Every structure is written in C-alpha cells, then in structure tokens.
C-alpha cells in the first residue's frame, strides 16, 4: 500500500466519522462509540478489500460482508451511501418515521446482507454463506465483523467450531476489540482474554493488529490465506476513536452529542484531516 493510498484511507475514514456523528446528532439516537471504533476496519474493507459493485448489489459473485455487531450500523450506512448503494441524502432520514435506515442493519437497505441486532448471529450465517461458496467452488469470500462484548454469546463459539470443522478458508471474521461494552470494561463484565488463544484453539488463523492502523489492517486482510483455516483478525481499537472526549469511555456506547459536543467533535476531526493533508 502506497503512502498516498494510506493517506486517502485516513481522510476517508475521518470524513465518514463526521458523517456518522451528523446522523446520530440529527436523529438524537445511535451507537456512537462502537461506530467510531469500527469505522477504520470498515473503511479498509469497503475501500480496499471487498469485491462489490454498488450498481449490482445482488451480483451472486459479490463478496459478502456481515455486520454482526449490528448496533454500529451508523458506520455501515455512511459507507454504503458514500459508495452509492443508496442516495447520500437519505442519511438524513436515519431513525425517522418509516425510514428504511433503522437502528440496526436491514436487508431493505441495498448492500445489507443480513438483518442483525441480536448479537451472536452473524458468524453462524457467515459460516452458512462461506459453506455455500465452498460447495459451489465459487470465489466468493465472506467477512463478518463482531463486537468483543458479543464474544460472550455461546452461539459465536458454535460457529467458530463449525468454520474450522468445515475448513472455511474463504471466511474472515474480525473482532472490534475496543474493550468496552454497555456496562463497562469487557474484562470486568465477563473476562474474554485471551481471545487470541481462544480462537487459535478453535483452529483459526489469528492476527491481532492495531485496528486504527491502516497498514496493519490491510496487511492482515492481504496476508496469504492459510489453506483450510478460517481467518480471525482481532482489531484492537478505541471506543469513540477520533473524538477525544468520547474515547475509551463506556458512556458513549450509545451517547448522543449535544450541540456543543457535536461541534467540538467536528472541529477535532477537521483539524485531524488538515494535519493528514499537511503530510501529503
């Protein structure tokens, strides 16, 4: 990945952060912290990794992305709109009466593959998709983003076992490891560490990376697939990343910024963009 490509991803993810904060600010609802922690991962996926065509959202040969942590839907919607799956203007309807842009992913929205919102479902469905692709000898790849709090759901581990059992080397799962869930620190609510060892024990090819480092993320997604093994990318992130007063604070799991906080956040993101441009 070239310096210019990295810079482009940084600028893109920062403008997406601004857009998703705007959605949440206008709707007065949303899952702010987790959207901000996962947006860099989604930026790499949607602008670098996934083989998808917004003009043909149902192309059978498209890669599939499943947002198992459905509450971070704001990050997904701003990307799908930016990619042209639906008009950017529609983002203003988020959470409004009869809008298809509801608070968790819905298949009524072009580009969304699965309705999520109940945690611990996405990986099982992804296993089914990857298994279908494997049996069809198709080149379709399947990607699934989970939360770290979500790892407490037993069904995640049923799916983990199955993916390894079926040797699904066309499947990549990602954990947004921001270490905070709605009630506080993940390790206090229900100890998860070591996730690396757990997923390795389940037979996955595990990569732990800085989930805000675009080089590290693209490298992990681009690493040669280990034959017969599903891939896990544990992306170490910060909840609320990019807005300093939100960062690493469980209160912002579904906190909504007021006028002053919103403008403060925009200023900080804007000044970061200028800093990035200054390095061009």
């Amino acid at each position, binding site marked *: 990945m070239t310096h210019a490509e990295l810079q482009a991803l940084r600028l893109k993810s920062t403008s997406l952060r601004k857009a998703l904060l705007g959605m949440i600010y206008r709707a007065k609802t949303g899952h702010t912290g987790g959207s901000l922690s996962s947006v860099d991962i989604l930026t790499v996926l949607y602008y670098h990794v996934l083989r998808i065509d917004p003009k043909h959202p149902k192309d059978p040969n498209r890669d599939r992305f499943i947002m198992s942590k459905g509450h971070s839907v704001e990050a997904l919607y701003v990307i799908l709109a930016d990619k042209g799956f639906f008009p950017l203007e529609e983002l203003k309807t988020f959470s409004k009466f009869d809008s298809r842009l509801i608070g968790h992913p819905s298949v009524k929205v072009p580009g969304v593959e699965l309705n999520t919102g109940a945690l611990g479902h996405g990986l*099982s*469905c992804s296993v089914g*998709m990857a298994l279908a692709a494997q049996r069809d000898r198709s080149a379709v790849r399947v990607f699934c983003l989970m939360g770290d709090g979500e790892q407490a759901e037993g069904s995640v581990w049923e799916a983990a076992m199955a993916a390894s059992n079926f040797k699904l080397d066309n499947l990549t799962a990602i954990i947004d490891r921001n270490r905070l869930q709605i009630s506080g620190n993940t390790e206090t609510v229900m100890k998860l560490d070591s996730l690396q060892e757990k997923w390795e024990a389940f037979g996955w090819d595990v990569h732990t990376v800085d989930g805000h480092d675009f080089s590290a993320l693209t490298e992990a997604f681009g690493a040669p697939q280990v034959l017969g093994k599903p891939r896990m990318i544990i992306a170490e992130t910060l909840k609320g990343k990019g807005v300093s007063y939100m960062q690493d604070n469980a209160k912002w799991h579904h906190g909504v910024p007021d006028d002053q906080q919103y403008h403060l956040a925009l200023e900080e993101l804007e000044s970061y963009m200028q800093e990035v441009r200054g390095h061009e």
Partner: protein
Amino acid sequence: MSNTIPNRKAFTDTLVDLATKDPSIFVVTSDARGSVTLEKFADTLPGQFVEVGIAEQNEIGIAAGLASFGKRVFACAPACFLSTRSLEQVKVDVVYSQNPVRIIGISGGISYGALGYSHQSLHDFAVMRTFADLAVLCPADRFQTEAITRWLAEHDVAAYVRMGRGPVPDVYANVQESFTFGKANRLSEGSDATIIANGETVHHALEAAKILGTQGIGVRVLDMPTIKPIDRDAILSAAVETGLIITVEEHSIFGGMGSAVAEIVSQEHPVPIRIIGIPDEIPIGGSSAELFDHYGLTGDAIASEVMTLIKKFKR
C-alpha cells in the same frame, strides 16, 4: 394398523428423491440423522448434507446463510430443540432477514412422551405462528407429508413443519388429494358440529365422527394441515353451517391451532368453541398412545366431548 411408515420417513424418502434431481436442495442437521432418518440422504448426497453437531442455534444460522445463496434448505432436528433453542435464529436469521429455510421439527408434540417435558414440543405452533410470514404446517399422514415436502421444495418460503415419531394410520388414499397449501380438507360431512384437527389427531377425529354417526349425530371433520396461513373460509363456513366447533391438536390448549380458529370465529362469526389439547400442566410420562388416551385426544373421548357440547349448546 396397516401403515408402518412414520411421517419423518416419508419426508426423508421424498427429500432424497427430490434432492437427487435438484442439487440446490440442502439438509442441515444437528446430530439428528438417526432421529430424522437422514442416513440415506447423508450417504448418497454428502455434498448437499451439512452436519453441525449438537448446536441448534448454529444450525439455523448456517441454514439461513446457505439459503441466502439460493440453496433450498431443510433444517431438521427434534421439534423440541428447534422450536425453542434456536427460536431467536428463526426470528432474526430466517424470518426477519427473509431467508426461506424450511424448519423441520420431528418427533413433535408428545411423540417423545416418556422422555419428559424437555423432549416434548407443545408450544411450537404457538410461538412459530406469531412470526410474520412464517408458514406453520403439520401433516396428518405419510401421503400428506410427501405432498408438503414436494410443495416446500418447489416454493421458496420460510416454514416450520412439525411431524411425529411413530407411524400413523393413513388418512388419505394418495399424495395428490392430501394437500393444498393454506387449505383445509373436508374429510366428513355433517351439520351438528365441526371437528377441526391436524397432525396425528386427524385419524382420531375421524374415529370420533364414526362413533357419533352411529348415534345419529353428523359432524363435519376438517383436517387443517396449514396452521398458518390458516384457511379462514373453511373455518367460517364451519361456524355458519354447523354452529359448533371443536378443535383437537397435539399441542398446548394455549396458542395453537385451536386458538387460531378461535381468533377468527370469535371476531367474525361467534359460535361456541371447545379447544381440546394438552392442558396447562407438565404432562405425565408415557408412550404417545397412552398420553393421547390420558389427555382425551382419542376417538372415544372426542366423541363424548362433542356429545356433551351438542347437548349444552344445541338442544
């Protein structure tokens, strides 16, 4: 009893036949190939067979993922587990996400009577029929089972089908006459009352009609294999033309086929209704036949109940 083929076997025999010609037909199961009688499918069509181990949540999630790729998926396991353990996956991954999985619950109701309440499914019609657009079915015999299986293989709908464990007497003479989706079958004529049954209670309802006939009482018997979408017209005709309805099902008296009938009758043409099923208690242990007898689901008991109701409401 002449028939020795259980409905679950009629289902798997039909499915092997269909899947041999249609490679998009997939079976997903959770360590239930013996219980469901899927051995032949697994042996002859391994590329269309998916074993997930004892993991019913994962079973339905994987089935939904396969369905999203255009596979015609039959997810098969004991009804007690599929309709309870994987309920959220049915709701979210299948119904809400619009993935047309055919969920096949075998050995349903009190088929596993002696194994205890953990293995009984007397709640499945009730919970499944509240999910939008999920069809709910329960075949009466092997011919209807085959007809339902063939229909489901040809139609991309999400459905829950419950069938029992042991063989049941034939109700129909052939596959063709046994099933139309969403329609009741009128199996006996009479104007004193209507008995609406489904699944393994249908032959008992017919037996009741025969007993009542010898006493000069004519009852209409409706087989209601499709619990959802239910045949509203057949129910209302029964209410208008016979004025008394008795429902019989291998299910809790709450929320099942009887409740579905009562919802329509009470709101559109109120007539007396009696819902016969398993009362609000943890069932005692015993064989399926013993429990049918104990809970009044057999011909004699149904006939006696109909007689009492006719005396109370119609004479």
